[in-house]
């Protein structure tokens, strides 16, 4: 039952299910794109003038959109994976996951299918947001190799945050709770990173936090790759964060998933 070929087949089945869910529940999928697009518009058309002036001549073309667009692309990952957390939490509440657990299927396939689905969905959202940013005036200076490298970092970070979102979906008691936990990736970490302003301009406590949290090196790396600005050690830090979060998220999610589903039991006993 747990031969590798069945594991692959079951994961493919779960992936098909997840893709179908995305297509059937377009509002959920769309909000993963809408939030970053609105944020992008807000920061370019409303705050952009002041923020851009405050940044000085950072971006190669000197316009704020070039500074902020790579950050918005990374933010898209945060809102994309929150969909995954909410979907998983709903699955848990509806009992379908409990059904899967009583079947002789490869245990990992449920989460693997979900993660692959999340990766595909979020990368499509990223593509759309990149397109919108280009339409709004984002002018990257990257060549093909730099683009591929940037997309690689984006995919890697998506994978990392997806595994963490799986944990949120498993430990969040309700869909709202799961969404609440993933606000860390949707708002808290992006806004306290180098996304909108340079950490150097922040008060010392927040500056310290901004310099040592994962979003800053990832955003700086993608920004550097797309704009041709210096990257320094950000790339190494970004990859280390991605690998670290993926490993932690994967192990944590697997442990919670394999553990007895306590929430389900308590509700059933009452």
């Amino acid at each position: 039952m747990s031969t590798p070929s069945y594991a692959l087949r079951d994961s493919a089945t779960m992936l098909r299910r997840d893709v179908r869910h995305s297509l059937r529940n377009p509002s959920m999928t769309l909000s993963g794109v809408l939030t970053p697009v609105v944020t992008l518009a807000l920061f370019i058309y409303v705050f952009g003038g002041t923020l851009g002036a405050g940044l000085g001549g950072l971006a190669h073309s000197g316009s704020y959109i070039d500074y902020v667009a790579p950050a918005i692309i990374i933010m898209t990952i945060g809102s994309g994976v929150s969909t995954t957390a909410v979907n998983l939490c709903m699955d848990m509440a509806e009992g379908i996951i409990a059904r899967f657990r009583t079947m002789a299927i490869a245990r990992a396939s449920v989460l693997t299918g979900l993660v692959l689905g999340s990766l595909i969905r979020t990368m499509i959202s990223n593509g759309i947001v990149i397109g919108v940013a280009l339409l709004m005036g984002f002018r990257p200076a990257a060549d093909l190799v730099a683009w591929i490298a940037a997309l690689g970092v984006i995919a890697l970070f998506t994978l990392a945050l997806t595994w963490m979102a799986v944990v949120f979906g498993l430990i969040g008691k309700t869909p709202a709770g799961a969404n609440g936990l993933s606000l860390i990736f949707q708002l808290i970490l992006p806004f306290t990173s180098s996304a909108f302003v340079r950490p150097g301009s922040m008060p010392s406590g927040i500056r310290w936090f901004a310099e040592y949290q994962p979003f800053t090196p990832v955003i700086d790396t993608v920004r550097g790759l797309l704009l041709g600005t210096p990257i320094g050690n950000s790339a190494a830090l970004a990859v280390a964060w991605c690998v670290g979060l993926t490993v932690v998220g994967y192990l944590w999610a697997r442990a919670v998933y394999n553990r007895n589903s306590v929430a389900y039991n308590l509700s059933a006993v009452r």
Partner: protein
Amino acid sequence: MIETRGLRKSFGDHMVLDGIDLEVAAGTVFALLGPNGAGKTTMVQILSTLIDADGGEARVAGHDLAREPDAVRAAIGVTGQFSAVDNLLTGEENLLLMADLHHLGRSEGRKRAAALLDRFDLVDAAKQKPATYSGGMRRRLDLAMTLVGDPRLIFLDEPTAGLDPRSRHTMWQIIRDLVAGGVTIFLTTQYLDEADELAGRIAVLDRGKLVAQGTPDELKRRIPGGHVRLQFANASGLEWGARTLGEVMRDDDALTLQVPTDGSVRSLKAVLDRLDQAAIPVDGLSVHTPDLDDVFFALTGHTDAQKGNLR
């Protein structure tokens, strides 16, 4: 098909199952009867590999539960209390999902899904999502999904809870058909009539302990809750009736007597004969068969409702 010895489980300091020994023979229906919170669902969750027991042993479908959970999973099907269907997939897609997960081929999966839709009267709803289904339809789809894998042993956790009488009878018929096809059923219920109707053996679970086990008839014989209620026209009739029948429960305000019986026609006739010989007029008569409350009162000395007071 199932054999457990000393099965124990607690959540925190709340003991849910406290040493359960039971045996279920292949090809039979076994009903675990008990009120809400007795531990029925926990029992199903343990036997269906969903959660681990804290102690004790169990063999399910010939495999050790703790050591070979995958072999157990391959042999069983579970339909829980809360229907576990995918709400974003149509009824048919739900069945095909199960077929894929059982590694049936494409055409075999389609064939089986079509047959199950037909058998469970879901053909018209096949292309719709479960959100549009009635409670009975959801439950039927849930059971159909369980049957895709052709399990030898099926766990049904309160299969008719919340269903209307008609859907309930449909479900009963489905269960009878399954047993006729050689499937073993482990059923939990809080309705005595359901256990009586379907099960060959019943075990009564109360506060995590089995308080009785036996065939429906064996259990019912232990329950003295059945009685005949006689309504009299006036106080003198009541007085004569009480004297004639001896040990009865008397209600002077309502002018009624409660006479315990085992519910058989013979015992009923005996009561009426004695009244007839004494020429006592009776206005009305009703027969009360034991219900779950009577069972619990007889077996445990408390009813579910009285639990708080008696403790």
